[in-house]
């Protein structure tokens, strides 16, 4: 099973989210009210570590374990970045969770979050349904 390795990376990532309390509703409110450095600290270490790694990968022209050249991730601008970004932000403050933390919260035993998760899937489905009618 070639995908098992991604499951293992997910376990470590999920553990970091959970043990770093980045899946905590309390921590999100604290962050939105600028009352603690904790969550900002997580972003401010994760992003430079990620950025430095990508820089190294590019400079050394590293390849994947199967020999493919690694492409630099590209994120294109469209107006959805603003509109969708704000809409996600609204939901983030209510649920205290982004999509990753939703999985980790369910795993942590907060089973009612399954409803939040299903509602998020419905939100994505609705976006797909309305996509052509939304400003892009």
């Amino acid at each position, binding site marked *: 099973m070639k995908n098992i390795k991604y499951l293992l990376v997910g376990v470590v990532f999920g553990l970091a989210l959970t043990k770093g309390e980045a899946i905590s509703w309390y921590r999100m409110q604290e962050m939105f009210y600028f009352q603690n450095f904790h969550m900002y600290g997580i972003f401010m270490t994760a992003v430079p570590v990620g950025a430095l790694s990508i820089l190294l990968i590019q400079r050394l022209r590293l390849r994947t374990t199967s020999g493919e050249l690694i492409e630099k991730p590209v994120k294109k601008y469209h107006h959805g970045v603003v509109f969708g970004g704000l809409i996600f932000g609204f939901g983030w403050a209510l649920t205290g969770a982004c*999509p990753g933390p939703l999985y980790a919260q369910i795993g942590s035993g907060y089973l009612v979050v399954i409803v939040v998760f299903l509602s998020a899937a419905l939100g994505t489905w609705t976006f*797909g349904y309305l996509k052509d009618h939304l400003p892009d």
Partner: protein
Amino acid sequence: MEFFYAPWPWYVAGVVIGLTVPTLLLLGNKKLGISSTLRQICAACYPAKIPFFHYDWKKDSWNLFFAAGILLGGFLGGYVFANPEPVAVTAETKNLFLSWGLDDVEGLLPQELFNWENLITAKGFLLMVVGGFLVGFGTRYAGGCTSGHGILGLSALQWPSLVATACFFIGGIIVSHFVLPYILAL
């Protein structure tokens, strides 16, 4: 044993989260991102006649394994080795919660709000069902979430991701300051 139960300092969690970016790239040119798994689930379960959900989702099934891993990581970190202490928010934040009528800062999220009975109340419905819907709708519209834009996109110095992340925060700050207190008072 205490070591396994204790929360991690922000710099440890941050470094591990950051290292996920090169790990996924090196393992198979995979880009960190989790909201895309919601699209995958739609495509797999109920694509209907929506073109957005008609693509070869099985080709990207790695991210479903990744998501399953996150769930398992949550199970290990938040259930098996759950921190028995309440989340160490600042005194200021505790006062904020008290002003919202939340005196019980137990676990990772307030169970007096996030529970099954509350789903049929206006408060619970808004927090869980409407909140969840906005998360799923908004992330897909924005083309990523806190991981795809906020961690991966920023790491790759993509300016659209900076715009997205700023909007995530602006949206969150608006609702947490000007909407959430009224919902909690319902």
